[in-house]
């Protein structure tokens, strides 16, 4: 039933994503003005900020799906969680790379420990790599699902703690980087918001592909186990 609609939905979503990303690229390189002080490098922002949003949304999905899995014990939520975690780690990697690429010409360094957002992103990356490691290394069907769900929930709750502790840690020491206010011309702001929207749709598309793959893979596994046990019954 739903099976029949998956392929068309995938196609339509992919098409929409392609169009949105096309528009986004056009807006970034031709519509948005070049920033006065930082120059053209500042355009990294239109990729850096949306990827960060996608990463955070992905981990939010892991958190929500983890809770729902523990309550309902429905494996579908677990498929959603693992798919989302993988995409989240991928996008956090991009956030860190793009951030470094932006920081190098502007702050004259690849990395600073003074900004809580940077440090939190890095810790976030480690937490969810651990999440993926749990999934691949822990034995026992239901056990590793529950374990991963709990870890995903605790990891997400830990994020604000990490953020604020790094913030306090650094405000006690002299501060190097100021937060400059978001006084952008409307073209820039529009481009940024559109980029966020386009990347969210991209995330939804990737999540759908990954989710379908995960659930079908599990289905194959189930059928195999089922037929094996049938064979041994005789």
């Amino acid at each position, binding site marked *: 039933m739903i099976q029949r609609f998956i392929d068309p939905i995938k196609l339509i979503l992919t098409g929409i994503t392609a169009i949105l990303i096309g528009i986004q690229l056009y807006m970034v390189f031709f519509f948005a003005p070049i920033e006065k002080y930082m120059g053209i490098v500042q355009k990294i922002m239109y990729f850096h900020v949306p990827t960060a949003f996608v990463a955070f949304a992905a981990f939010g999905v892991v958190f929500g799906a983890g809770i729902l899995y523990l309550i309902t014990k429905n494996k579908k939520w677990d498929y959603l969680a693992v798919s989302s975690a993988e995409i989240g780690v991928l996008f956090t990697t991009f956030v860190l790379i793009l951030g470094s690429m932006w920081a190098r010409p502007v702050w004259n360094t690849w990395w600073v420990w003074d900004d809580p957002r940077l440090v939190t992103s890095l*810790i976030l990356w*480690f*937490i969810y790599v651990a999440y993926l490691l749990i999934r691949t*290394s*822990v034995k026992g069907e239901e056990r590793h699902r529950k*374990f991963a769900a709990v870890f995903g929930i605790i990891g997400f709750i830990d994020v604000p703690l*990490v953020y*604020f502790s790094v913030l306090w840690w650094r405000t006690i020491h002299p501060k190097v980087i100021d937060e400059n206010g978001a006084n952008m011309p409307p073209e820039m702001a529009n481009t940024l918001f559109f980029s966020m929207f386009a990347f969210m749709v991209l995330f939804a598309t990737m999540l759908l592909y990954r989710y379908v793959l995960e659930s079908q893979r599990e289905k194959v596994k189930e059928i195999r186990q089922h037929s094996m046990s049938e064979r041994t019954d005789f």
Partner: protein
Amino acid sequence: MFFKQSLLILKRDLKIEFRNKSLLLSMIIFAVLFQVFLQIVFDANIEAIKKIAAGVLWIPILLSALLGFSKYGIAERENDALTGLLIAPVDRGAIFLGKLLGNLLFVFIVVIISVPVFFLFLKQPFPESIGLLLFTLFLGSWGFVALGVFFTTLAQSSSITDLLVPIMIFPLAVPLFLAISQLTEMALYPSIVMGQDLWVLLLVGYNILFTIAPLFLFDILLEV
């Protein structure tokens, strides 16, 4: 009833561990050895050590505790006794608390020996706010052990337990590490007392969170 059960678990574990004292002894030796090692590699003179004192004090304790987690109650795994324990009519939360107290006792013994060794090597006047130092040592090791015991027990069915545990708990423990390193620095060099209450609050909150949450989660997670 609940506490009685966890004390029972604690008594049972300690009896097994003290039958041969190799775990406790090796934890202590490791901590002291690592302390000496750190002092040597950092070539710590009085000026330099001001910056790294908190790390030199804590790293041996934390690593020693970490090595202890997976070895404490290893007899449990060998004969699949954990299953027996889970079937026994004991509250799962009590199992967690009992294991936590046992590990904590070991880590405290390590602290009692390792910290004086630190001051022995440090060639530095005794810390002025000894109360704050003791408070930090107590709650710092408590938080780390709570986190460690929880995840070690969960990861026991993993193929890479010993490696997975630090990978899981170090990122989660970043707030804890920041709090204890800041507070230790304040205790050792009281001239930089700023935001102390904030860190104390964070440390206490973190401890409460990671002691209470596992008590409930253990029940869901450890079904036979």
